């Protein structure tokens, strides 16, 4: 099956990843998948205030996911929304397992993700950018994090849906995982699917995301070897 934009079912959109795009930040990265574009910046580790938020045994990964007003067809009202609050939360959980947070008790690692252009797959693009930004900042990590969403259209599994494809899919299933250990750190699903499909879709997502992982590593190598 050829898709609307000519891609194969298992083909992600043209991907560009660049590390070190925000001069002020400790670490940063930009990811674009087609015209979905995310920028992530990392500040810290630094002291966490107010003090009562400090944790005695580990750092707090303070995560903010934000869509800028002009990123969508209809203007997106600035400031946090219920959706962005939830995505901030699951993004934090997607990255925490990969970071040695215990090395920085009482501190925060502040991670800000701005979606500057949105055509589906923004949370996964944000996570991909965030993982590169964290590594770029020199935050010690036990593994990387790579993320992609998959769906099912006309009985066929497809990867990295566009907004148009999201309108017709039977499900939307974003996954993030640690590529070395293959452990899953983000999993959400909306739709209506038999059990068997869910398992196969997760495997399909992890397989299709290999190229993203490669690009993430390339971006870091390019930034730090030149």
């Amino acid at each position, binding site marked *: 099956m050829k898709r609307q934009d000519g891609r194969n079912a298992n083909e992600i959109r043209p991907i560009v990843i660049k590390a070190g795009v925000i001069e002020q930040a400790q670490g940063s990265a930009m990811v674009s998948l087609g015209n979905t574009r995310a920028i992530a910046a990392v500040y810290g580790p630094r002291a966490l205030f107010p003090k009562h938020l400090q944790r005695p045994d580990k750092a707090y990964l303070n995560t903010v996911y934000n869509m800028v007003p002009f990123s969508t067809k209809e203007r997106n009202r600035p400031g946090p929304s*219920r*959706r962005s*609050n*939830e995505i*901030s*939360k*699951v993004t*934090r*959980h997607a990255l*925490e*397992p990969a970071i040695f947070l215990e090395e920085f008790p009482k501190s925060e690692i502040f991670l800000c993700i701005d979606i500057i252009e949105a055509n589906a797959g923004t949370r996964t693009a944000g996570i991909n950018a965030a993982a590169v930004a964290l590594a770029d900042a020199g935050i010690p990590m036990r593994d990387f994090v790579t993320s992609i969403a998959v769906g099912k259209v006309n009985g066929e599994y497809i990867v990295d849906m566009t907004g148009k494809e999201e309108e017709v899919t039977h499900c939307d*299933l974003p996954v993030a*995982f*640690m590529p070395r*250990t*293959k*452990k*899953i*750190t*983000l*999993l*959400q*699903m*909306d*739709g*209506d*699917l*038999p*059990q068997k499909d*869910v*398992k196969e879709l*997760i*495997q399909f997502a992890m397989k299709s995301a290999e190229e993203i992982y490669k690009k993430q590593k390339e971006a870091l190598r390019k930034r730090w070897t030149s």
Partner: protein
Amino acid sequence: MMIQNSYILNLLKEGKRLDNRKIDEYRKIKIEKNPITQAEGSARIKIGNTEVLVGVKMDVGEPFPDKPEDGVLITNAEFSPLASPNFETGPPREGSIELARVVDRGIRESGAIDTKKLCIKKKEKVWMVFVDVQILNHAGNLIDAAGLGAIVALLNAKMPEYDEKEEKVNYEKKTQPLPVKSNPVPVTQSKVDSTFLIDTNLEEEDVAEGRITITTKDDGNICSIQKSGSSAFTLDEITKAIDNSINKGKELRKLL
């Protein structure tokens, strides 16, 4: 707290829990239907000491432009300071937002509400269904209690009548049942060490590193998944969690 945590972990190594339940056993579930007479439908759910109240209210409003013939579903959750020393007043925090959105997705994606039947006039007037979750006592596993409460409240809801001439909703006359087509039930499992616990109490939630909520339908299909918390799962663990949710979902559905 640390002593309590290691106690729970040690017990689990022997396959035991603080309150002697099995790993996959719910606390006692009590369901009260329509306790709130003012609401179109309502439910009071107790799972052990956890207690939530879910109310369904309806009103007439404009449909979304991309779905001109569909009724609108709006789900919200209040973590009232009444229910826990850890809940504060103020704008909703991520915990209550996540809960409401997970419950919402279960109802929406399963097609539980026949939204096409809630159209009054295309593009102009449709019924809006408000599902509000009020936590009364937080003793763990709020999502399952809220999800169960939502479907019970919807199943027992009666629609008010709409007076076309006066353009007013008549809440005095509630006759037709709300059209409900499917019974989504969320089952949450928390990972402690490498064990998956069903229906965690507060003490167990303190120890858990991560959880996964899987909502299933009558036919065993899955309509929503939400992984949460700071741990990672293997594909095998997720597959097992899905199996458990399907089985437990069947059990819970018998209570409806």
